[in-house]
């Protein structure tokens, strides 16, 4: 018994170590004052953060990530929520199973395959090298996260609540606006956060459909690591991680406060 306990602890610690070690290795380098991305660090400075905001390519890529991330979040959240509303309560039919699977396909299809297809198709509609094109591409892979999150919440809503609203005189669209959507809000919010995070993180599709003007932060990191290994990458990674942690925190907080909002 003791041995089992001990091995559990050791294994857990090892897993955590391997997850965190790369972060621990890269993050301090964001504060190096050397021009090389390696240890030992000769001194500390914030020059690489200044570089991120002052150097045109980096600043541009951050702005692009925000533009594309916001667009993707809006589009994916709207479409995914509508999709989840449509799929809800139809668990028994084959059509449901098929459509539901179709919604989730982008999660499992290799991004390279999607990317090739999109590049061909976008070329035909003049969408390559446009913001809209990148947003559409990111939306395709972000929608499943929204669908899953919203569907989970919708399925936990007691249908009697909507029936009660109807019996009290609410037309179907009012039931949706006043009962269903408010109750689904936690799922919609977490779906939106996932969509944003997905867009922020996405490289492969971006490589296929984005032009030089739509370089996102992730894409920029990817290319600069091949071209010149500058500590700006570490600084970008630092911004990235802090941003992600902030989003996760925001998500947790919003879940809590949505759970028990004070009476309006």
């Amino acid at each position: 018994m003791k041995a089992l306990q001990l091995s559990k602890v050791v294994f857990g610690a090892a897993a955590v170590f391997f997850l965190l070690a790369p972060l621990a290795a890269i993050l301090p380098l964001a504060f190096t004052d050397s021009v090389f991305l390696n240890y030992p660090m000769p001194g500390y400075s914030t020059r690489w953060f200044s570089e991120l905001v002052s150097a045109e390519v980096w600043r541009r890529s951050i702005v692009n990530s925000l533009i594309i991330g916001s667009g993707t979040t809006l589009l994916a959240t709207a479409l995914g929520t509508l999709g989840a509303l449509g799929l809800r309560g139809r668990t028994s039919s084959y059509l449901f199973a098929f459509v539901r699977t179709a919604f989730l396909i982008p999660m499992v299809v290799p991004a390279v395959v999607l990317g090739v297809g999109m590049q061909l198709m976008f070329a035909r509609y003049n969408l390559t090298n446009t913001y809209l094109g990148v947003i559409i591409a990111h939306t395709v892979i972000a929608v499943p996260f929204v669908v899953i999150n919203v569907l989970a919440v919708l399925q936990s809503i007691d249908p009697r609540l909507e029936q009660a609203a109807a019996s009290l005189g609410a037309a179907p669209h009012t039931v949706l606006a006043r009962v269903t959507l408010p109750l689904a809000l936690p799922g919609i919010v977490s779906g939106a956060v996932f969509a944003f995070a997905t867009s922020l993180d996405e490289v492969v599709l971006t490589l296929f459909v984005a032009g030089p003007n739509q370089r996102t932060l992730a894409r920029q990191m990817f290319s600069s690591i091949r071209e010149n290994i500058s500590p700006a990458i570490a600084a970008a990674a630092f911004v990235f991680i802090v941003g992600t942690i902030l989003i996760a925190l925001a998500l947790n907080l919003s879940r809590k406060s949505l759970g028990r909002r004070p009476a309006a």
Partner: protein
Amino acid sequence: MNESFIRFDKVSKAFGTLTVVDGLDLDIGKGEFVSMLGPSGSGKTTILMMLAGFENPTSGTIRVGGRQVDGLPPHRRNMGVVFQNYALFPHMSVAENIGFPLKMRRVSRAETGERVKRALDMVQLGHLAERRPAQLSGGQQQRVALARALVFEPEVVLMDEPLGALDKKLREQMQLDIRELHRRLGLTIVFVTHDQTEALTMSDRIAVFNHGKIEQIGEPAAIYDRPATRFVAEFIGETNFLTGTVTGVGGGHATVDIGNGRSVAVLAGQGLAAGATVGLSVRPERVRIGAGPARSNTVSGTVEDVVYHGDHLQVVLDADGQTLLVKADRAGSPVAIGDRLDVSFAPDECWVVGS
């Protein structure tokens, strides 16, 4: 019942192969209080849901106020519904919940506030207006659901076991309140309950359901005193059920042989003929301890158990293999387990049910 206001005409409802409501014919008068009583799964909720518009009958039609309501969506039916599980909106305060139907009807803000306040006072929850449903006890939630279904003064109120979660005292208080509202506002109420006492005390008429069919419908006294079937006799209150064969009819009485060489006299005239097999229902409170006067039925047996019920004692008597329940007055002479006892009941207290 005056003229029919709600009419079910041969309404059936099936889920797949399971027929839940089977050819229901039911007329409910305006301002009437009808209870639906029946075991779990007998289709009571399904009937309410069809009336409210959430389920469509598989066949048959439902009319309200002379108008066929099939195809009329729930939000245009103007019926207050109290759901079995309350169905309060968790994201709204108590006051917002109750104000919801008024908001839907575009009642002015000032009037809404006024009416919500009155509704809250009616259910004695004025002090909890700003709470969320999750912060209320089951009984308080039930009262909010009630207030919400009544605040817009619908003509018809459907209640699905609205008092199930309340303790006895509050339950009785709410029963009185609902009856008072029913009288004062002239509401037509369809009330589903598991509780036979509740049905007996509150209703103008009771419909007893079994397997999606009405076993019997009538005024409470008729249902209790003259049950049509053994099911009704045993479902409403406690009863002693005896089966036997009619051996003779004459002089206004029929003699029924209940086995072991014992026979009881019952009132004739219920279509009784010699040789027929019949069931007899005798309520425990109609059975008296001690031999009765001439022509009454006297049975003797051994006391098996005496159960204390506060206001009365329930005596379980074994009369040669036939168990008889007797509701005994506590003031009477003491009865102990093992005693031999004579009990009696008059012929007219013995209701022939048909076997």
